[in-house]
């Protein structure tokens, strides 16, 4: 208990505050509740910030302004959207399975909050420091697949069913490279605890694990259903995918959960690959937020640029590209860890060089192996119509 309080200053401040007036079990409960309250609402706040940022930045990427009417610079736009969505009629289709239909949005949103529990968002600021945090995140985030399948199946809509089936295939496939890409990190750091991962990084792990980062980032994009892997809710094909039939706040919960999942995934990326909260001069929370928004900006940038892939291409990409690449990464890292169990600074830089070399070589190799089908061809320009004068 004491050592936990020592390491978690966020919790210990609250605990000591409540401990002065109440018995210690109640103080513990109260302190935990306050932190959960702050975390959940903080995540909502960040989600709203992301929604605003996404709409404004995509506007700028598309050479327009984005929402700027509600409040100064349109800052209250997410609030206005939330109010609008709350007042919408709550429709349930006739053929729908009502219990499953109503349960799906709730089930979709809660794994997002669960995975936030183990993310440290500042020096000695976290809710829980599980020693199996990475495993926990992977396990919990897999739950959303069930919610999507429930939503799609219970809607009694064929578009929704298409979306759900696609989601199950895609999300389960991408779990594999996602987990495997983190194995390299675990090998280097030697712990699954998120706090230890941050503290154990002598260099930001993106330098040491470029291939692992690449695989994890793409798999995370796929898990988040963001472009170019957003075919679960591909609006030009499936209208809205698995949430076609949802309206009102139930739809709002799907939307909110997706954006919240983006925030949480970015937080995980920051923690694992960008040294988490650590940085010079500024306070640790601020560093965390800055890094978080940089990752979110890249997410938005990708969404603003790329078209989406097809279902078979996505599956092929997971199993034929990301999966072997993550195995290559594990092999390279394992050999390095075997060679230098306690690396000096020079050896770490040698590992950086080797890993970047491995990354480029393997990317080039896979590009070559996947064949020249993706090379564009240009049309020929002809001077005149060969068929001559029209009859």
């Amino acid at each position, binding site marked *: 208990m004491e050592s936990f309080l020592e390491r978690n200053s966020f919790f210990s401040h609250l605990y000591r505050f409540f401990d002065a007036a109440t018995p210690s079990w109640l103080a513990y409960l109260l302190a935990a509740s306050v932190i959960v309250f702050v975390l959940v609402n903080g995540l909502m706040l960040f989600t709203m910030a992301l929604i605003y940022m996404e709409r404004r*930045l995509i506007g700028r990427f*598309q*050479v*327009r302004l984005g929402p700027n009417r509600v409040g100064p610079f349109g800052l209250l736009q997410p609030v206005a959207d939330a109010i609008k969505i709350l007042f919408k009629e709550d429709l349930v289709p006739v053929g729908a399975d009502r219990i499953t239909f109503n349960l799906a949005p709730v089930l979709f949103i809660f794994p997002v909050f669960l995975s936030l529990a183990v993310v440290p968002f500042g020096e000695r600021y976290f809710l829980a420091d599980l020693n199996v945090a990475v495993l926990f995140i992977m396990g919990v985030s897999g739950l959303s697949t069930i919610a999507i399948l429930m939503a799609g199946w219970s809607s009694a809509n064929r578009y929704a069913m298409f979306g759900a089936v696609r989601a199950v295939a895609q999300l389960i496939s991408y779990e594999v490279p996602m987990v495997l890409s983190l194995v390299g990190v675990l090998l280097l750091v030697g712990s699954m605890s998120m706090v230890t991962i941050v503290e154990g990084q002598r260099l930001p792990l993106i330098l040491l694990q470029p291939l692992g980062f690449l695989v994890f980032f793409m798999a995370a994009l796929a898990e988040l259903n963001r472009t170019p892997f957003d075919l679960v809710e591909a609006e030009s094909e499936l209208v809205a995918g698995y949430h076609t039939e949802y309206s009102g706040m139930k739809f709002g919960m799907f939307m909110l959960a997706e954006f919240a999942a983006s925030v949480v995934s970015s937080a995980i990326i920051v923690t694992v690959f960008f040294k988490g909260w650590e940085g010079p001069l500024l306070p640790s929370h601020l560093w965390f937020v800055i890094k978080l928004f940089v990752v979110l900006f890249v997410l938005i940038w990708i969404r*603003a*640029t*790329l078209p989406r892939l097809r279902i078979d291409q996505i599956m092929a990409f997971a199993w034929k590209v990301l999966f072997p690449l993550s195995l290559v990464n594990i092999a390279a890292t394992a050999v390095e860890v075997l060679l230098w169990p306690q690396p000096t600074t020079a050896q770490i830089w040698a590992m950086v060089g080797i890993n970047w070399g491995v990354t480029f070589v393997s*990317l080039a190799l896979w590009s070559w192996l996947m064949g020249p089908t993706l090379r564009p061809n240009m049309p020929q320009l002809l001077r005149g119509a060969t068929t001559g004068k029209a009859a």
Partner: protein
Amino acid sequence: MYGIGVLKGMAVTLKNFLRPSFTVQYPEESLPQHPRFRGQDFVWYEERCTGCASCAKYCPLGIIRIVTDPSGVATPQGDKYKVLAFDIDLGRCMYCGLCVEGCPYDALHMGSGFERARYRRQELVIPVEELRRMPKRPSTWFRPQMETKGYDPRMGKELPWQEAGRHEAPDVEKMKERWVKER
């Protein structure tokens, strides 16, 4: 190597990210409107109109309703019909401008407005009273004489009826002389 095309595309979007936006904030500012813009508020000069109903005949949709009274008043230009009703149903108008093309006396012109939204369809009909009342800012569509005179509806100036025609407006004395000589 794969990914290069994607990175190139992302460079393009980043370049556009830094460009100023090309949209305009509509109620505060609006796009530059060109003098020939075929707008909603038709401009009708009662002084020039003889009630010949060419406009109604040229209209592909037949949305101009014109009622004239032959026992009308005498004007400096000579006798003409008195226009009792001149209703344009904007709800069905497609702004092709053929009525303006058909008008031999340059009495009817396209307007330059575009903000005539109404809550009911019948309010979209412009009755003759409103046509009389409305500010006279005609579009220069099919009116090359206005362009050569340098008239531009964007300046916000109203155009008096004497200057809307394709010929110089003759004064009364000249008119009388011509009528006497020609007959």
